[in-house]
């Protein structure tokens, strides 16, 4: 399983080097990767439906309990098949959709990176590795939304999406750490048995809120939903793949995955039901007021995610079954509608529903795909959408006291979703063909075959629901710790309340479709409420925060080195001084000090002279040279106290520092007396106070008994475990090698920073 995840990452790295040759027709070969993975995952269907759970463990950082542990059960399998199956069709579609695009290689690189991250997310058993893959999906989504990076709106949407999902990611990390602390493990499989203990823990509510924060931002739940319509700035294959079929379902996946661990609690259930209900109704209403096809689809996607959250909140076996079926239904019809929209946009050049009409005459196969998808989205038999809707109604109807209220909400949502599906899938193709679209050409088969395949699957699964019943739905319900053996998916449930509600839904929705035509007037009307929308409120508070941090930063980072240094010193003096004088013992036993040798005395004397010279000299160059002498004197002290490694390093560093200083000072104007008498006195007092504090601190430290446990451990094991006799170096490259790794990365970043600051010469027009 690890290999199947790494394959996508490997391919995107491979493209970095071979991108130049990755143009034109060859790009379709890339779709071999998701296809191979799809085939790979289908062979597990048999074993998984027999109740097997396939696990794999790779040690990563065992000392922190972080492993690369992978679990393939019913839930993961459904998501894996969706990721690779729809991924394959999107890869094929892209090769034609973005043909001759100059950055096609980048696009495929991001796309396969996303696919790999998403697979990692749904296969991870360890919460920490799940978090890392979660963040990787956010990052690849950022690159894909901002793919048209010359467009200001694209960049803005990409940043908003990254900020919202990024905050969710942090929330996931904190939640995972809390949960890890409570249960003592990061493995989800091990947490499954601890549900009652977790629920009775005082931190339970906090943990659940943190996990909700992650799931709601990723799955675009109210009030964090606003990043998703913005994300539609991405090319259509991305909207299809990330922002409707897979990535936005990561939040749903997380909720499903955590239900056996955190669920079965009133807080969990009621929050999910409330948030899901608000989201689905709010965004379903919004679909009425959009004229951009992608806008309609974006809001109907949010509504569908709301329905899923709503169902997970109910938490019964029926509700989870309905959710499982609806995930499949939604992935099939929504991906189709997005692909159809992409074709319309690509061939006819617009996505405005108010002008699109009669395209069936020029784009017949696309019209079929759109029609079938609209049927499935509307829940009209014999599509799989019908079964999904029946199951949703059934589980809501059986849900306790509030059943009537919840029922009303879900029916309203379904009616509006039917409307949205019809507008997106049927409206562009019906009516008379306007003149401006007469010359619309049939697209390449690579574009229209994927949506046809997806739409047909929606109908085939509807007629033969047994195809997905045993293979996907039952294993998913079983993997949630529920008993899914009684599930029987079928089209005909007999004549009952649910069927009547279904008929009402279809009738009212269709009526709505004929009564309300999308218009710019309606869109303009709803735009008036923009000021009170969550998006405006949240972006405004961001702007305020930005302003605050800007002025706060300017207060301290004012560009004068002397102010930086004095700020650091003042804070250090005040804070350390305060805590020092409160706790210090003031007992320095001078008898324990070794006698001062001649060498130490001479070195100190040299240092003292150099210090006095540095302070009073009138030449910068001389001051720098004197500073160098102080540095070398310190090196000699290191040698005297037998720390040769430190001395060598300090020696080289001091040499380079002097060179750097000289390079910079050489170009500065002549030494000027910028500071007056008063300022010098002030600076003098400040430095003396600083020096005194540090000296007192060191004396205090010496008075403490030294614990040599750590250094003894290193000294004893350096040769045994790391085959080295130089303990300092062994610590650097072996015992604490990860620290060194990060340090050299920081060094490299600093160098890049210096290079960028000095080499970047902005043109006058680019300067702000």
């Amino acid at each position: 399983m690890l290999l199947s995840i790494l394959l996508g990452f490997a391919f995107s790295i491979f493209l970095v080097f071979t991108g130049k040759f990755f143009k034109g027709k060859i790009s379709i070969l890339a779709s071999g990767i998701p296809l191979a993975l799809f085939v790979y995952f289908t062979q597990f269907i048999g074993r998984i439906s027999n109740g097997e759970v396939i696990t794999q463990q790779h040690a990563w950082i065992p000392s922190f309990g972080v492993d690369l542990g992978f679990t393939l059960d019913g839930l993961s399998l459904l998501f894996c098949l969706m990721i690779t199956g729809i991924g394959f069709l999107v890869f094929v579609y892209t090769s034609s959709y973005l043909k001759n695009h100059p950055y096609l290689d980048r696009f495929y690189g991001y796309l396969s990176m996303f696919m790999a991250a998403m697979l990692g997310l749904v296969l991870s058993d360890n919460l920490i590795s799940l978090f890392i893959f979660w963040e990787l999906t956010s990052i690849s989504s950022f690159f894909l939304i901002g793919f048209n990076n010359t467009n200001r709106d694209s960049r803005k949407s990409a940043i908003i999406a990254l900020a919202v999902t990024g905050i969710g990611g942090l929330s996931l990390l904190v939640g995972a750490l809390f949960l890890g602390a409570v249960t003592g493990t990061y493995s989800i499989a091990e947490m499954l048995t601890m549900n009652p203990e977790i629920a009775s823990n005082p931190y339970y509510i906090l943990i659940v809120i943190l996990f909700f924060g992650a799931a709601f931002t990723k799955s675009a739940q109210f009030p964090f939903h606003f990043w998703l319509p913005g994300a539609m700035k991405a090319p259509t294959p991305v909207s299809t793949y990330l922002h409707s079929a897979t990535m936005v379902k990561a939040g749903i996946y997380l909720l499903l995955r955590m239900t056996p661990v955190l669920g079965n609690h009133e807080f969990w259930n009621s929050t999910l039901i409330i948030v899901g209900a608000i989201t689905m109704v709010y965004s379903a209403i919004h679909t009425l007021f959009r004229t951009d096809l992608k806008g309609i689809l974006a809001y109907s996607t949010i509504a569908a995610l709301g329905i899923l959250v709503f169902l997970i909140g109910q938490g019964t076996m029926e509700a989870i079954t309905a959710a499982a079926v609806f995930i499949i239904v939604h992935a099939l019809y929504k991906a189709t509608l997005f692909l159809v929209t992409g074709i319309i946009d690509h061939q006819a050049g617009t996505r405005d529903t108010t002008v699109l009409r009669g395209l069936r005459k020029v784009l017949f196969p696309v019209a079929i795909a759109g029609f079938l998808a609209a049927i499935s989205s509307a829940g009209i038999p014999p599509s799989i959408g019908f079964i999904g809707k029946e199951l949703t109604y059934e589980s809501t109807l059986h849900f306790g006291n509030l059943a009537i209220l919840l029922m009303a909400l879900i029916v309203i949502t379904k009616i509006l979703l039917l409307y949205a599906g019809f507008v997106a899938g049927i409206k562009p193709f019906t009516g008379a063909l306007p003149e401006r679209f007469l010359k619309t050409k049939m697209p390449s088969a690579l574009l229209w075959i994927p949506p046809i395949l997806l739409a047909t699957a929606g109908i085939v699964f509807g007629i033969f629901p047994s195809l997905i019943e045993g293979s996907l739905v039952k294993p998913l319900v079983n993997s949630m710790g529920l008993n899914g053996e009684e599930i029987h998916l079928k089209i005909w449930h007999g004549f009952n309340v649910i069927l009547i509600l279904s008929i009402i839904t279809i009738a009212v929705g269709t009526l709505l479709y004929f009564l309300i035509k999308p218009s710019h007037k309606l869109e303009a009307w709803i735009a008036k409420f923009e000021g009170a929308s969550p998006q405006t409120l949240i972006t405004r508070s961001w702007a305020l925060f930005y302003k605050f941090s800007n002025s706060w930063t300017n207060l301290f980072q004012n560009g004068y080195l002397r102010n930086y240094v004095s700020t650091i010193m003042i804070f250090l003096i005040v804070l350390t001084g305060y805590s020092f004088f409160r706790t210090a013992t003031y007992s320095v036993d001078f008898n324990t000090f070794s006698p001062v040798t001649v060498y130490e005395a001479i070195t100190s004397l040299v240092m003292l002279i150099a210090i006095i010279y540095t302070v009073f000299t009138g030449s910068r160059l001389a001051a720098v040279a004197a500073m160098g002498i102080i540095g070398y004197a310190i090196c000699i002290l290191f040698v005297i106290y037998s720390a040769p490694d430190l001395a060598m390093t300090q020696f080289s560093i001091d040499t380079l520092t002097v060179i750097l200083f000289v390079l910079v000072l050489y170009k500065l104007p002549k030494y000027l007396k910028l500071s007056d008498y008063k300022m010098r006195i002030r600076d003098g007092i400040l430095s003396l106070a600083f020096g005194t504090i540090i000296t007192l601190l060191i004396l205090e430290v010496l008075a403490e008994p030294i614990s040599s446990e750590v250094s003894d451990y290193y000294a004893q094991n350096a040769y045994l475990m790391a085959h080295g006799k130089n303990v300092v170096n062994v610590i650097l490259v072996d015992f604490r090698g990860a620290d060194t790794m990060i340090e050299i990365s920081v060094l490299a970043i600093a160098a890049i920073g210096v290079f960028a600051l000095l080499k970047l010469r902005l043109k006058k027009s680019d300067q702000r």
Partner: protein
Amino acid sequence: MKTIILRTASTYLLPVLLLFSIFILLRGHYSPGGGFVGGLIASIAFVLHSFARGLDNTKELLRIHPGFLMPVGLALAFLAGVTPVILFDLPFMTGLWYPDHLPVIGSLGSALFFDLGVYLVVVGVTLTIIFTISESA
């Protein structure tokens, strides 16, 4: 600073100093030294050369921009860290050692490659900073 003595000496000092820096790098595991100091000494060697012969000459001698050494070094250090994960399923940064003693080098382990990575990064960073500043100032 371009005296004839320094200019002549720098031609011979550069290889000697570089050899010395590699010596320091290799002995690091048993005696004072290591990748960090070694890298600094190598940078000083190049800086000295640039003082004596001019920055352009040093750059020509280097052929590539010193900045390229940073990713190479980072990659090397990272590879030394992940090799145990990939090959032997051991945790990240586990030290691997070649069982037998080799002539001249002594025992060979992944730590040496890690240290070599540190060495390259340090040379790349120091030279990038110093060259950039001396060019633009």
